[in-house]
Every structure is written in C-alpha cells, then in structure tokens.
C-alpha cells in the first residue's frame, strides 16, 4: 500500500471492498473530471444537454441503473410487462432514464424471421427528460419549484414543490410525474449535483457505446448533424434528429430540446409526439376569450336588469 493510499484510507471511511484496489484511491474528486470522460468542461452559464444516438444503443440499460444508483431511486416494479425486453415501462417519478425496445415488424405486419447479416430487428432508445428550451413544466409551475439552472437545465427543487401536479399534464412528453409517497414532482435533473462537481451525468458516463453523449448543446447539435449525414450516406434513409431547433419534437414554440435524439423511425414508434406545442402560448387566447364572454354577458345583464327602472 502506497503512502498516499494509506493516508486516504485513514482519512475517510472506505468500503472494505475498496481496500483491494489501493492504487485507485484519490485524495478527492478529480477536478473537471468531465474533461477526461467526455471532453467537456462544465462551466456555469453554458448550455448543456444530451445527444442520444439511438443507432448506437444496445439496450444494456446501464443508463437506467446508473441513474437509479446515483440518484438513489427505488425500483418502480419488479414484474414483467410481457411485451419486450422493456420491463421498466416508461419514465416516472422514480425512473428518469427509460430504454424503449421496439421489435421491427416486416411489411406484412408479422415478425421478420430472416435478417441481413449484422442487422438487428430491434430499435432501442434511451428516453429521458428533454430539458426543453421553453420548458412547459417550468412555465406551468406556480411555486417556482421548477427552475432553470446555471447549466441551462430544468430542475425541481424538492424543498419548494407542493405537489400541485400542474407540471405533469403540462409536459408534452409525459416525463414529469408525482411520487404519491412524498407528494412531490420528480424528473431527471441532468445530474445537477454532478455538474456542480464537474462530473459528467451518470447515465452518459455509464453508457458503454456512447449512445448517450453529454456536452454543450451547440456542439452536440453540430455533432448530431454530422452523424445524420454519415448515416444517410451509409444508407440509413430514416436517420433524422428529434428535438433540433424548430424541427420535429421541438415544434409549436418549444425552441429546441437540450436533450435530443437521433431516430431512424417515425417518433410515434418510440412513443414520442412528432409535433408537440408550448402550452404557455394558449394562456392568453383562453383568458381573453373567457373575459370577453364575461364582459358580453355582463352587458347583457345590465341591459336586461336595467329594464326594471323604465
């Protein structure tokens, strides 16, 4: 055991298993560790997000596990859905990464029984909170519990949320959920605590194929466009981005999605809406139409009830 390792063993409580690897002891967190793991330095004031390239996903669910481990989230269910390898079902208050498994069917609607070499009949996609540019959940939150962080991500402050639940129907992607046990809204924080410490989010760091890429949003968008071109030139005609500025998934005033995706099939296949909208755009039309109705009926009332004076 080296002297440094000796000292750190004494300095902090260490799991006995960790003593097997004295060489791996560190005096503390590696500063800006994200530069080592994903080539991105995390600095407040910049915009961070995920680029999830579904063509690289192998469905290992390491992202789901890493997310649950880091954020100490309990399991949602221990049953089988009976529909695919997806036994998670969907995003929820306790599940902030969800790997969707879609078995492609042949043109006759039945499962393909023959495959080209090295091709898979499965589409896999790791779904997550989109951290929208104009985030409907944040815009709906009446307490200010939902806020935009210095990393341009959207987070629920658990010490503020009063569980009104308005963010749940506000989300166009069905991401935000209430936990009935604690009565608060929960969703992916894009590992706010890890970003503060210069660490890459847990799911992206755990992804073994770099299907989940973490980085600065403009950089990721450029990288994603190159990837689409590359795939198209390789013959993947359906490759396209979901959540690029103003494009599919970021329509109706949403701007762009900080967590965006490369898909090869139409978004509905993955359970994603092709043309979501920004709910806040409907506030004024509703209020004005309602107030106009009240004003019109008030004038009618004045005319009608004033008849008594005649």
């Amino acid at each position, binding site marked *: 055991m080296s002297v440094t390792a000796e000292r750190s063993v004494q300095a902090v409580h260490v799991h006995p298993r960790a003593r097997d690897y004295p060489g791996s002891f560190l005096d503390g967190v590696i500063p800006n560790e994200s530069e080592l793991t994903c080539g991105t330095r995390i600095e407040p004031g910049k915009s961070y997000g995920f680029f999830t390239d579904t063509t690289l996903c192998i469905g290992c669910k390491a992202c789901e596990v890493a997310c649950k481990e880091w954020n100490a989230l309990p399991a949602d269910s221990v049953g089988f859905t009976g529909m695919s390898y997806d036994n998670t079902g969907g995003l929820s208050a306790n599940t902030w990464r969800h790997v969707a498994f879609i078995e492609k069917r042949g043109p006759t609607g039945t499962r393909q029984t023959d495959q080209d070499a090295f091709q898979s009949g499965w589409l896999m996609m790791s779904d997550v909170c989109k951290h929208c540019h104009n985030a409907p959940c944040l815009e709906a939150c*009446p307490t200010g519990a939902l806020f935009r962080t210095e990393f341009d991500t959207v987070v629920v402050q658990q010490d503020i949320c009063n569980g009104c639940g308005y963010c749940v*129907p*506000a989300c166009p992607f069905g991401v935000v959920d209430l936990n009935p046990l604690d009565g608060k809204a929960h969703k992916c924080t894009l590992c706010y605590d890890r970003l503060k410490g210069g660490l890459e989010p847990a799911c992206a760091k755990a992804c073994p194929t770099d299907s989940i890429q973490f980085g600065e949003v403009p950089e990721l968008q450029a990288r994603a466009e190159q990837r689409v071109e590359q795939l198209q030139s390789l013959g993947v005609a359906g490759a396209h981005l979901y959540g690029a500025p103003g494009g599919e998934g970021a329509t109706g005033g949403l701007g762009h999605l900080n967590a965006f995706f490369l898909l090869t*099939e139409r978004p509905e296949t993955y*359970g994603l809406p092709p043309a979501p*909208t920004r709910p806040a755009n409907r506030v004024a039309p509703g209020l004005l139409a309602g107030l106009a109705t*009240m004003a019109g009926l008030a004038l009618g009332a004045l005319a*009608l009830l004033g008849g008594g004076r005649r």
Partner: protein
Amino acid sequence: MHDMPGPAQGGSAYDGPTYYDRPSLKPAPFNTTVVGGYIFLAGLAGAAQMLAALVRRARPPGFRRVARTGHALSLLAPTLGAGLLIYDLHTPQRFANMLRIFRRTSPMSIGTWVLMAFSGSSLATVAADWLGRVPGLRWLRPLGRAAELPAAVSGAALGTYTASLLSATSTPLWAATPRALAVRFGASSVASACAALSLAERRADNHRTARDLDTLALAALGVELAASLACRRRWRAVGLGAAEDTVSGKVLLEGGADLVGTALPIALHAAALAAPPAASRRGSALGSFATLIGSLCLRIGVLEAGDATALRPRESLGFAQPRNLPRQR
C-alpha cells in the same frame, strides 16, 4: 407500473405504429371531483360577485337583496373552494408556496393571485353587508362599495381562468380548443350564478327579478350550448371524438352538462317566458337546479374526458401531428 389502457375505441385519430399502445402522456394527477368542484364553486362565486355589482348599477326590484346574496355566494370561493384546492395538493402543508412568485405563463399562478384579490375584495363587500350597520363599524360601508369593482373584475376572471388553466397543458382534449372551452366555462359560470340568485329571489317572492335572472341565464346557456357545439366540432376535427365515448364523457358531458345542464333549462326557461309569470315558478326552479348540476357536471366531465385522451396514445399522438400545429403568425 402504469395502467395499460386498451386500444382506442371509436374513430382512431392515428393508425400508425405506437409504443405498444402505452400512454405517451401523463394525465393530470388532479382528483377530478375535488378540482371539478373547485372550478364550479369558483365560477359560481366569481359570476355571483360580478352580477351583484351589476344589479347594484341596474337597480331592478329587490336589488339590495340580490346584491347581498351575490356577495354571500362569493364567499364559496375563498372558503370551500380554497379548501378543495389545498386538499388536492399532494403536499398541502406547503400551500403558501403558491404565493412565492407570480408567473404569467402559468394560469395556476395567475389564478392564485386572482383568487387572492377576489377573496380580499369579496370579504370587504360581505363585511360591509353584515357589519356595516354596527355602530363603530360604519366605515366598512364605503370600504365595501370601494371593493365592489375589484371584486366584480376579479370575479369575472375567476369564473373563466380555469379553462385557460386546462388549455395551457399538453392534455389533448383541453389543449385542442382554448377559446371555445373558455367561452363554455365563462357562460356556465354566469348561468350557475343566475340560477342560484334566481332560486334565492323566488324564495323571497321577488318573481319579477327572478324572471329577469332566468332570462339572463337563458342567454348564458345559449352561449354555453354554442361553445359546447364548437368544442365538439373541434374535438372531432383533431381526432379526439372518441373521448366522448368514455363513460364519463357520455354521462357527465353529454348527459350532465349538455342535456340536463343546458338543453333542459333552456327549454324550461323559454317555456316560462312564454307562459304567464305565476304558472312558470316551478319550471323556473327546476331549470335553476338543473343549471347548477350541469355546471358541476361540465367541469368534472371535461377533467375526466381530458385525462382519458392523455392516456390514449392514438389520440394524443394523433393530436400531436404537424397538421394540428397552430398557424405561424
């Protein structure tokens, strides 16, 4: 594990592939009876306060009593209504966090402050009514009169902001028709307030003003019926027609809101206007009761049918197609 709904019934909006027909949206976690009850009470209280201010200007027979009844009805919102809202929070002890901020993109935040303004001004009008004659408390009377206008304006907003609250979500049924839903809620609020005030005037044997209130209710119900038809047309156009196939859609929206709450009182009030005044009293009271029940059914029914569309991926994905996007300004 979330509940897996069966395949969509009726005319499916979207026939392409979905993710195992699992919901792609989450329904609002509101208790539909509790929140529907609040929307009904807020509408009734807000419109009653607005009508109270109007009758004090128009001065029909017995207007002082009508205004007092309207003021008293307005208390339903800050008391029972606010109680229902807090009850529906999943962390109710933090209800005061609603007052931390004002957010103009959130009708729930706007509504919180509308309810605060309405509660304060309504309390002043009621205090002036009930305590204004007590020696030493006469200063309450000018205060009550000063509070009338803010109470009426915030009452008008309280009677209709709840439609905007529902529309400013991603739940397809609510998002599909923001304007028609607001007109429908606003008209239903006025109709329910007219019904309650009319019942009170009939009890006090002031049939003349009750008849005027019934006529006003008739106008409001006409507007509500038109908005209901507009809602239905829009829902069918964007492939949400099947929402009305749910039990709640059929029973609460078609049966409760449209038939009992709108068509029946329209028929009764119209018949009452044609008949001699003395012969129409029972019909008027029945119409008023039906209006109140229908107004409550409308709110619970819209909440329930909306949740159903959120849970049905063929309807939510069908609504979220590019053809349904609002036109670019």
